[in-house]
């Protein structure tokens, strides 16, 4: 099964519409860096259209969990299923990453390319789109995030909020089945946080499947349909925003939320 996993990723969208079948399912996932245990026995799944917010204190393993989903980190134990197929030991992780996008805390825009070419590089190299088609696609998504006027700018000429919106457009150009957000607003000043969250909200309303690691509680409360609270490498509690924010069951959750 492991041997076939890469080829199965390509066929995965055939089963994407099966209702109730999770796109991403994580089973008994554990990760340690040497003796340091970061994640312990994580189980959770994401279905089509879900907006999952992962919250919790720093160092609780949220980002590591997210980075395991697109295989940036190799889990020590457990499995990651993409449309039911085990991709944990995929030989070609890039095939999975074509379908699972990621937006970073530090933007990671390509410094040598302007805004337009940041967005067209993926579609052109991975999907072999023509230059014109890729540009049209890029402009469509840059419009979604309100950055279409800046196609000629280099990343260094943009503000943090603008960079992050371009990074979101770049990820959208790959038409991902799931988009992972790794603390997308943590490097931004308060005024810019708003413009990025607004863009993300639009995507959620358009039905994009998203997993968002965030410290923005109001965003999680308002936009998510599923909230996961992590601490010390385990999922302490999960549920709807109402359950987590208004009626948390665990003491640890109450303590964390009372401080935010």
């Amino acid at each position: 099964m492991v041997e076939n996993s890469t080829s199965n990723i390509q066929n995965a969208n055939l089963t994407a519409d099966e209702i109730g079948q999770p796109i991403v399912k994580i089973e008994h996932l554990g990760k340690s860096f040497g003796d340091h245990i970061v994640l312990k026995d994580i189980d959770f799944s994401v279905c089509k259209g879900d907006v999952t917010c992962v919250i919790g204190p720093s160092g609780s393993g949220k980002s590591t969990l997210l980075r395991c989903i697109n295989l940036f980190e190799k889990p020590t134990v457990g499995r990651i299923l993409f449309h039911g197929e085990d991709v944990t030991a995929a030989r070609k992780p890039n095939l999975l990453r074509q379908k699972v996008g990621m937006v970073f805390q530090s933007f990671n825009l390509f410094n040598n390319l302007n805004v337009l070419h940041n967005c067209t590089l993926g579609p052109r190299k991975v999907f072999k789109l023509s230059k014109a088609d890729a540009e049209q696609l890029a402009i469509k998504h840059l419009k979604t995030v309100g950055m279409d006027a800046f196609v000629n700018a280099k990343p260094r000429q943009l503000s943090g909020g603008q960079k992050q919106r371009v990074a979101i457009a770049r990820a959208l150009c790959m038409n991902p089945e799931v988009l992972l957000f790794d603390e997308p607003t943590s490097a931004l000043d308060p005024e810019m946080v708003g413009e990025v969250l607004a863009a993300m909200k639009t995507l959620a309303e358009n039905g994009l499947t998203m997993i968002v690691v965030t410290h923005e509680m109001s965003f999680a409360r308002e936009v998510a349909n599923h909230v996961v609270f992590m601490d010390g490498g385990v999922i302490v509690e999960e549920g709807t925003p109402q359950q987590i924010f208004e009626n948390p069951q665990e003491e640890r959750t109450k303590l964390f939320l009372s401080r935010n």
Partner: protein
Amino acid sequence: MWNILSEYYIDILIGVGYTMLVALIGTVVGLVIGVLIGVYRTIPDPKSKAALVFKKIGDYILTAYVEIFRGTPMMVQAMVIFWGFAELNGGRTLNVTVSGLIIVSINTGAYMAEIVRGGIISIDKGQFEGAHALGLTHTQTMFNVVLPQALRNILPSVSNEFIINIKDTSVLNVIGFTELFFVAKDIVTQTYKTFPTYLLVAIVYFILTFGISMLLRFVERKMDGSKNYKVLGSQNLDAESYAREARNG
């Protein structure tokens, strides 16, 4: 000095030509060798055992190449390669120009390999992750994102190598290559005017290196591009005109 120049300017120009030819081709080929080695050395370790062993063997060979050619004088390398070839071919020597090009190229390659590796590891890890997150392969990431930035960053070091090569081709006179220094020695044997000849040649060397230095700094500024950019005005342009403006922009 001026008498020498007016009498021997054709010989000097030939010397300049050969010096610049070997320095330029040697630097370019050396850079290509350096880029290939640099990319090879940053390939993530393959998963299968056999491929890993194969890659490790390659690594050892490249390390040996870099260390040997950095660790011995180019003048000695020139003698060993030139006469080594003759030894293996029953006394028939390789053409001196070809020998010179080969020697300078592989010698420069050894230095460039380390320069390029330094340039690649100086690029922020986020640039790799940004590309990998889109599903790009290691090679695609290297050639589209990392190397363009790494090459810009190492350009000052590449200029350095070019200038060193212009001067160091003078050691190729030991295999009888007609570069600038060889021409100078030749002029001295005919005129016995040692000081003015070498002073003249020193000035010519300086003009060459300083000119190249200026030229490459201009190239660096060009690569950095404009500090300004145009914000496209109307929000109502259709996709095609955006793309067109972006291209012309």
